[in-house]
């Protein structure tokens, strides 16, 4: 018995005394990255782990979404806007000790736009005509047409600068230039990073950081409560946040994302090929009820496809006020018979599944019978996104500044408006910020008045952290969990 007690007490002593070291951080994220190469897959979890931590690009996003220099310390843009000459930082080394120079930039950009490229955002590089190395620290990029978004595009995780020396194993052993080096990946559980002591810029405060992957919301809650995690970025269950708020040990960090959550509508299929019916749809929806019911009150209502924190944002929610009586009369005018059945196909996120139930109830109240089917992501991509076999779906478009998708008539909304397409073309060719904002405002107004989709809310980013953790990004201007500025309060 005595022996047994000794064993028990030894076990008790060996319990982790909640990782209270001042220079390491264990942070939870919901999804595990399939691999760690941000330049060849769409999975947001790859950028969560690698963006700014492991990999860097020519430019980068800051927390408020602005674009600042990163590996390129400065650049010149030719008068015609077609040639960008980037001056690279001096003394930048990859984690394997090789030097980062103009050849690596050329390699990265050529690889991303090449014929057998598997870059998920190949479109970002489509405007590049050629990349020339002028000297080891200077690289020239020639565009085929002016692109006001070019510096913005180069800030994406998909435009990270990689080296030909380490490209072969990049998926399991990523080698970048960032403030953290990849250390270890226990698949299914965690990725460990250590500080890059030879970092060219401001070194990280944390000596090491661990990303833990916990997909189940209840497990995520327990892990925070039990003190296994120091923080959880993009906490999956908004209903639990109130418990963290009430707990002295934690703080809840609420920020905004680039995710416009919309009731995507098939503009080619009846009954929503008629703008009157789409208008009726917009007025039948009670946004606040959806935000309260599906998001527990977290989320900003939107009336078009642009993030409210953007300078060019116009509040157009007035175009689609909740007015079921108006919706009913519009439906009657359009000759839609009562009880018409439409499909509502929902991908897995809880905003879609919960929001879908609420929207279906709201539509039923005006005489539209929405038939819900729940799809997995892979099915959703095939049926809805590529097959366009749907009437309605709910999804958050998380790519930053993606209003240009409305100019593509083959996109799954199937919205075809020549005026809008001309406007976006003009926007691409415009570099002046004032002028761009003006065009963006016009673009929002057009899609809002055409009722292309039902505009619901801007997806918030809800994170939880121990009180003493400082410097976590509240906003998500791109998919990223930038740990380079994170530290423990003294």
């Amino acid at each position: 018995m005595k022996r047994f007690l000794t064993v028990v007490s030894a076990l008790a002593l060996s319990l982790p005394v909640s990782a209270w070291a001042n220079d390491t951080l264990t942070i939870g994220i919901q999804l595990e990255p399939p691999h760690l190469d941000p330049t060849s897959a769409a999975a947001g979890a790859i950028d969560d782990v690698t963006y700014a931590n492991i990999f860097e690009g020519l430019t980068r996003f800051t927390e408020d979404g602005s674009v600042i220099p990163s590996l390129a310390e400065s650049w010149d843009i030719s008068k015609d806007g077609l040639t960008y000459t980037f001056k690279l930082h001096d003394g930048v080394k990859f984690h394997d000790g090789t030097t980062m120079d103009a050849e690596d930039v050329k390699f990265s950009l050529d690889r991303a736009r090449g014929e057998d490229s598997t870059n998920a955002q190949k479109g970002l590089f489509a405007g590049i005509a050629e990349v020339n190395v002028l000297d080891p620290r200077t690289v020239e990029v020639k565009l085929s047409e002016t692109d006001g978004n070019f510096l913005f595009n180069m800030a994406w995780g998909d435009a990270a600068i990689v080296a030909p020396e380490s490209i072969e194993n990049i998926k399991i052993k990523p080698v970048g230039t960032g403030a953290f080096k990849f250390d270890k990946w226990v698949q299914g559980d965690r990725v460990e990073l250590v500080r890059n002591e030879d970092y060219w810029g401001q070194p990280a405060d944390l000596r090491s950081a661990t990303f833990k992957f916990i997909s189940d919301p209840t497990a995520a809650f327990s892990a925070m409560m039990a003190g296994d995690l120091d923080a959880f970025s993009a906490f999956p269950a908004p209903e639990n946040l109130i418990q963290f708020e009430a707990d002295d040990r934690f703080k809840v960090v609420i920020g905004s994302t680039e995710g416009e959550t919309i009731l995507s509508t098939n503009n080619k299929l009846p009954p929503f090929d008629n703008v009157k019916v789409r208008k009726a749809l917009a007025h039948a929806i009670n946004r606040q009820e959806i935000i309260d019911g599906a998001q527990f009150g977290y989320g900003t209502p939107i009336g078009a496809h642009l993030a409210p924190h953007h300078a060019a944002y116009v509040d157009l929610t007035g175009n689609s006020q909740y007015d079921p009586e108006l919706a009913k009369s519009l439906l009657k005018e359009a000759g839609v018979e009562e009880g018409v059945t439409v499909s509502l196909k929902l991908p897995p996120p809880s905003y879609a599944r919960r929001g879908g139930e609420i929207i279906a109830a709201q539509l039923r109240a005006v005489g539209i019978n929405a038939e819900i089917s729940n799809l997995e992501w892979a099915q959703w991509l095939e049926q809805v996104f590529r097959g366009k076999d749907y009437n309605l779906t709910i999804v958050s478009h998380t790519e930053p500044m993606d209003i240009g998708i409305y100019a593509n008539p083959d996109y799954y909304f199937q919205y075809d408006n020549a005026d809008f397409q001309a406007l976006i073309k003009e926007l691409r060719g415009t570099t002046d910020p004032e002028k761009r904002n003006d065009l963006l405002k016009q673009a929002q107004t057009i899609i809002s008045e055409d009722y292309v989709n039902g505009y619901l809310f801007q997806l918030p980013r809800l994170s939880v952290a121990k009180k003493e953790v400082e410097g976590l990004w509240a906003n998500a201007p791109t998919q990223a969990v930038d740990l380079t500025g994170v530290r423990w309060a003294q």
Partner: protein
Amino acid sequence: MISYLTKRLASLFASLLVASIVIFTVIEVIPGDPAAYMLGMNARADTIAALRSELGLDGGVLERYLAWVGGMLVGDFGTSYTYRTPVADMIADRLWISLPLALYALCLTIVIAIPTGVFAASRRGQAGDYGIVGATQIGVAIPNFWFAMILILIFAIQLRWFSAGGFPGWEKGFWLSVKALTLPAIALALPQAAILTRVMRSSLIEVLGEDFMRTARAKGLTSWQTILHHGLRNALIPVLTIIGLQFAFLLAGGIIIEQVFALPGLGRLVFQSISQRDLIVVESVVMLLVFAVIMTNFLVDLAYAVVDPRLRVAR
């Protein structure tokens, strides 16, 4: 005995072959293109085509089936579409968690269920028996994931004796890892123990009514001696069957428990792979689990023959 063994082996191989065809076909017809899933919403058609050919998804169905089965026979399970690492390595890594967890849970199940079942049977109709039957009723009714959450609430969040989930890795220390598996093992084991207790109890009660038990008592053995030497052995056949099924269930059925405890085991791997359309991983893991179930049944069949000599005679 030989003919019994040959028959069992033949049916083992036939089952494996049929299973491989069924698994491959079912997974082939699941909608969803792995390449399109990996590249997301902004991918261009030429990029998806480039990735499909990189993944080897261009070949014909029969060609891919034969390559898959042929590979497995020599231990090559192919390369994961998403992780780009050999599937065999991934399975081996995950097996180091799922297998110990299943064995741990099975041991707990047996250690709890057999004595409890025997005790209940020996006290049939008395207070102890009613108590145990009532408790097992509850145990069968409680879903293991709910029970797991209660365990986490009490032992991880309130008492802080255990962490709420995760697995440190065997290289970080044996006891630390056993500790990490303890709550999951208990959560898995208790509902199974409740089932096994009931089977043990009813099977033993049936045997206790047999004539040879009365004879054993008549020749002067005590009540406990008859139960242990004559009753238990005869009552074990249904119990073995259930244990075999339970082991397979514990190995394959850890999916939910592994989610609740964030354990990087086989169940979690299958779950992730299905949603990511990493078909080759799903196929191989499911095949492995089928193999485990069929092998367990085979071993249980052999165990019957050990327990019951009549089965050794060819029929």
